[in-house]
């Protein structure tokens, strides 16, 4: 049993942290968010130079074959720095190509930072059930024709290519009959509406209107896309959990610092026992969340599907709970300053909140945890 990071992992973390502190500070980030595109090409190049885009890509394709634990380290630092670049969207998309063992050229371009991708799975009615798909894939002589609309696609408008789920049958909530495609984002018939999200990111609604896709662009097995989506959504969950830990560390540190410096009634407010214990609770929440994020990063690669689902859902549920408590209390302890946009604490709170609502909220994952066959007999 060993919880230590390797020296390489530590160095990677430090490099990203230094970069975020120096080149992705609060003002720079504000500027990027306010820009028309909402992301920064410069920052993306720098992330590529640092090796972040290459990290999850297989070595033989120019990457570092980074494990989920390696990714945990990076996501923590990007969380700490509140980096709003399309990294999560791109590496999640990359995972589809890796698992499907296809489109090695795209993976190579991801590694170098040449290409950004996004994952278009959710629809207006699906909420957290990614198998609930109304978008259709109709076979024709040239492959498939896609029709339908995906919504709140993270960085959908900034992506060069999209991972898209679509359905071959009529049963909107059927877990079979699902295809997954890699689609060029500039294909004819794709209409993207870009918008800001409350946490400073970008997302898009994407309409597919008679979009032609070649057979080679189907990822994984025909009609069997759900297994792929379910597995990679768990991978995404583990990334989000790690990101959340990085933010929790930063927001907790900022709050602790505020308690030590902010004076009221002639003493630092950190002298009030009620606030002290609140801070102790935040610390405990963070440590419990950290344990689950670690477990998630290790178990996301488990060959035992039930163990993977069970652990990842446990992690997302636990971290969602911690994210809400820590975020709300950090704001509360900051008092009036906490509810302005002027301190990082508000932005961390917002991102912690949207992480809770991404890829399944706490209740969704508690229900998934309960639904695993082993729930009634295991402990």
């Amino acid at each position, binding site marked *: 049993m060993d919880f230590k990071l390797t020296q390489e992992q530590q160095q990677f973390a430090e490099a990203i942290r230094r970069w975020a502190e120096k080149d992705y500070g609060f003002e720079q980030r504000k500027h990027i968010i306010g820009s028309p595109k909402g992301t920064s090409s410069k920052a993306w190049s720098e992330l590529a130079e640092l090796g972040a885009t290459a990290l999850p890509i297989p070595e033989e394709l120019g990457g570092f074959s980074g494990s989920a634990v390696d990714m945990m380290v990076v996501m923590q630092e990007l969380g700490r720095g509140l980096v709003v670049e399309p990294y999560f969207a791109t590496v999640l998309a990359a995972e589809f190509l890796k698992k499907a063992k296809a489109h090695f050229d795209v993976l190579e371009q991801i590694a170098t930072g040449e290409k950004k991708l996004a994952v278009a799975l*959710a629809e*207006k*009615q699906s*909420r*957290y*059930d990614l198998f*609930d798909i109304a978008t259709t894939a109709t076979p024709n002589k040239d492959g498939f024709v896609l029709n339908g*609309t995906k*919504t*709140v696609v993270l960085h959908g408008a900034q992506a060069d290519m999209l991972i898209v789920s679509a359905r071959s049958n009529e049963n909107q*909530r059927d877990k079979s009959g699902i295809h997954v495609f890699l689609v060029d984002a500039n294909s004819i018939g794709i209409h993207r*509406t870009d*918008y*800001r*999200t*409350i*946490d400073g*990111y970008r*997302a898009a*609604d994407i309409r597919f209107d008679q979009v032609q896709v070649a057979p080679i662009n189907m990822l994984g097995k025909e009609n069997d896309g759900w297994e792929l989506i379910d597995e990679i959504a768990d991978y995404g969950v583990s990334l989000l959990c790690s990101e959340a830990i990085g933010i929790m560390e930063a927001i907790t540190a900022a709050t602790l610092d505020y308690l030590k410096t*902010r*004076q*009221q*009634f002639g003493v630092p407010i950190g002298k*009030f026992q*009620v*606030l002290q214990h609140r801070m102790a609770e935040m610390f405990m929440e963070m440590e419990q969340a950290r344990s689950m994020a670690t477990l998630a990063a290790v178990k996301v690669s488990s060959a035992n599907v039930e163990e993977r689902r069970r652990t990842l859902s446990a992690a997302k549920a636990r971290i969602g709970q911690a994210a*809400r408590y820590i975020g*709300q209390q950090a*704001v*509360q302890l900051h*008092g*009036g300053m*906490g*509810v*302005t*946009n*002027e301190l990082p604490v*508000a*932005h961390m*709170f*917002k991102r912690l*909140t*949207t992480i809770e*609502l*991404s890829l399944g*909220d706490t*209740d*969704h994952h*508690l*229900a998934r945890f309960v639904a695993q066959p082993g729930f009634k007999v295991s402990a």
Partner: protein
Amino acid sequence: MDLNYTAQDLAFRDEVRSYLEAHLPADLQHKVRNHKRMNREDFVRWHKILAKQGWVGTGWQVEYGGTGWTPTQRHIFEEECARAGTPAILPFGVNMVAPVIMAFGNQAQKDYYLPRILNCDDWWCQGYSEPGSGSDLASLKTRAERDGDFYIVNGQKTWTTLAQHADMIFCLVRTDPAARKQEGISFLLIDMKTPGITVRPIIMLDEDHEVNEVFFDNVKVPVQNLIGEENKGWTYAKYLLGHERTNIAAVGRAKRELLFLKRIAGEHQKNGKPLIDDPVFAHKVASLEIELMALEITVLRVISQDSGRPGPEASLLKIKGTEIQQRLTELMLETVGPYGLPFDPQFLEGETEHSLVSDDDAAALASYYFNYRKTSIYGGSNEIQKNIITQMILGL
């Protein structure tokens, strides 16, 4: 023990309800019910409609143009306004500075300001908080030095709600820096157009412009704008803080929001069924609804006990009221989940059509959730309220 309204009260309720049905503009109601952002014009329009009816000074004596309603009638009126979804009558003039003027102002001040307040001729804002004062209000530093017929004011106020629209500000200023903290404070009315006043927006975490910093740089204020006696301002401020807590439980609004929550939870799906049919979610809604039922009775108990001006029990109402409001926003955001993420300030201002696939209901809910975190902080943080319960009720 009789928990029913009297026949008179019921008749009054019907009167108010009919009036609101007839006079509340549909566009304002739509904005309120859908958590959109209100602008200056929205507030003023509704204020003037009510002023015409004579229903602005609900806590005022009749001699000043008030309604002379009983505490129960005021409660019913507030509930009906909340139920209908009216814009708020902002408290800074009507419920904050006006009671102070009535109690401590001179005749000229009463004659001039009170009718203007009733009719919304002046937009008032509140100059209490300062950077660094926080919950320790009396530690304020803004100075007012007497110079002939004027005070020269220097300093800074903060968290000044909607000061960007304001014509007037009432301020606590320090007139005797040598005195002890609570002494040496005076209560001044200041025209916002006076040279030397600068308003700087503070943008909230939902990017709304709701509060401001107000800077005073050698601002000349005529001495006739002093309320009551010099150096007695803290007494007036405390008097006002008691008034501020009226309707702080906001039961009526919470009931309207609960219906909104139930409606959207009936439209959003979980496991292919309406979310409201999910037992886990339904239990959360039910717990909240029951908390609200309890709070409504608690409010009525407080109203029935005294003259309608709650004492330290107001702290309980404030804590429970804001907990319920915040919980409502949590459950709304949970309901729409990822569809709450898109952020379109122009849509929230009512200026554009929402272009997104996701529904209009969801558009404001993340902002609403974030914005409402302030409710447990402002008006005396909930921690401060617990201190008050501890000391004033429990005697610890």
